């Protein structure tokens, strides 16, 4: 057990402007960055704004950038840093800042609403759903998502290009499309909704250049790129760029 003084730089400010403020703060054994932020609140900066909730890596509220990397404050142990290192904490840099470490993540809620919901199969009542474990495995992986939006934050498509926010749903919601497209009982196709096609036409799958940062930052370890985005790209190819598949589907429909 030992404690020491750590040097922190925390971004403070709002949409009008702001900057990195220096702090020296006590750190005890076994603490995480969120503990230090809380200590700052309790002792030096009572109005330091930060979002947090479960403090156990399960709710995805305390997303921020630590030394320039998108991370959960509650899952970043202080022991991963050198004691003489200055630790920089900033808000997510892809979304409009509200105050201090809190950003407006409304972009994500807007995108969530643009993905058509699960379509229950006709004629199958509650209690009659039968699905095999191997058929739900893939979508279950995506449903581990805690919606921390770190993948949305790190994705250069919107991080570096504000103008793409309109057309691009971001990894989290392209993964949601994949989740529904792989759901064994989703009946979207029967209602004329082709999720494979809309992934590209409406949710901007083509913007993704599979550079895998979303997978790198995912605190749940979901293989977003390999298991959701690339399979969706392949499914879009089935629909749009594969004459053999196209021909096959024409013949079968006859």
């Amino acid at each position: 057990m030992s404690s020491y003084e750590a040097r922190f730089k925390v971004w403070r400010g709002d949409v009008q402007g702001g900057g990195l403020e220096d702090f020296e703060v006590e750190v005890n054994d076994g603490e995480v960055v969120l503990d230090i932020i809380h200590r700052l609140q309790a002792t030096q900066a009572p109005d330091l704004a930060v979002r947090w909730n479960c403090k156990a890596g399960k709710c995805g509220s305390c997303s921020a950038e630590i030394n320039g990397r998108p991370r959960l404050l509650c899952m970043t142990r202080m022991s991963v840093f050198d004691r003489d290192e200055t630790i920089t904490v900033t808000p997510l840099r892809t979304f409009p800042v509200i105050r201090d470490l809190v950003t407006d993540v409304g972009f994500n809620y807007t995108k969530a609403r643009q993905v058509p919901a699960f379509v229950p199969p006709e004629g199958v009542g509650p209690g009659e759903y039968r699905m095999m474990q191997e058929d739900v495995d893939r979508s279950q992986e995506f449903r581990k998502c805690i919606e921390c939006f770190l993948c949305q934050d790190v994705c250069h498509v919107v991080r570096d290009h504000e103008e793409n926010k309109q057309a691009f749903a971001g990894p989290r919601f392209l993964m949601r499309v994949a989740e529904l497209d792989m759901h064994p009982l989703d009946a979207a196709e029967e209602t004329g909704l082709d999720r494979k096609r809309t992934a590209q036409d409406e949710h901007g799958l083509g913007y993704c250049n599979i550079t895998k940062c979303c997978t790198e930052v995912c605190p749940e370890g979901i293989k977003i790129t390999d298991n959701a985005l690339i399979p969706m790209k392949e499914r879009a190819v089935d629909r749009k760029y594969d004459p053999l598949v196209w021909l096959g589907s024409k013949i079968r429909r006859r």
Partner: protein
Amino acid sequence: MATGTEPPATASDRPRGGVRTGTRAAIAAPHLRTDRWWLAPAATAAGLLAFVVYSTWRAFANADYYAAPYVSPFYSPCLAENCVPMKAGPNWELFGSWWGISPAIIILIFPLGFRLTCYYYRKAYYRGFWASPPACAVAEPHASYTGETRFPLILQNIHRYFFYAALLVACILTYDTVLAFRDEEYNWGHMGLGTLVFLVNIALIWLYTISCHSCRHIVGGKLKHFSRHPVRYRMWQWVGRLNARHMQLAWASLLSVALADLYVYLVASGVFDDPRFF
């Protein structure tokens, strides 16, 4: 309202820019990473560049690609009249005498296209050469970005056709490896160091080819119900396990194919003789 659930105003003059602009937190630095984030893209770029330089030289050299019984994978199959005759080897004169330059160019398009459109290599060169992005959370230097939505990058979608072609090429290279079980006089049942090099190379080529994302999709990934296709489900799982190593296999097979070619070159140009085992 707090953290607006209302849709943003759809202004016609949409704001542009990246992390340093608009309503984002005012931070001048393009990134605040303190680790050596540039190492990975730099190493990737260096590795790819080295291969490009080497393979360009070898592909255009049009020499020292056959040292019986070994044929360089860069020149197999050899499809022009100006190929060195290889006994029982992969000579098919589909292209007539009009083809003047190195016959490697004809065939290399396929493995090259396969690798160029490969989901792993795309990541590697987008990051390493195009800095889009250079590394995670490091601002990219481009003013605009459309990803793979337009020509030419929309062509990346044809990856699966290159995969089909790559399967053929892999078959031919397998045939070449079988031929490597001969000696210089074309007698069967012999092995040299080159045979081993070829064996390792073909194994890695196959693993890389099979672990491709398109392959994973074709064998089973496209299905909605695995439970109705148990065999394809098994195959999908197996390809999936390989696919998790796609990056490592991409590099290993890139290196091995270059080494196999280098080996042939060294033997063919007489630097040393192929050590025979039996």
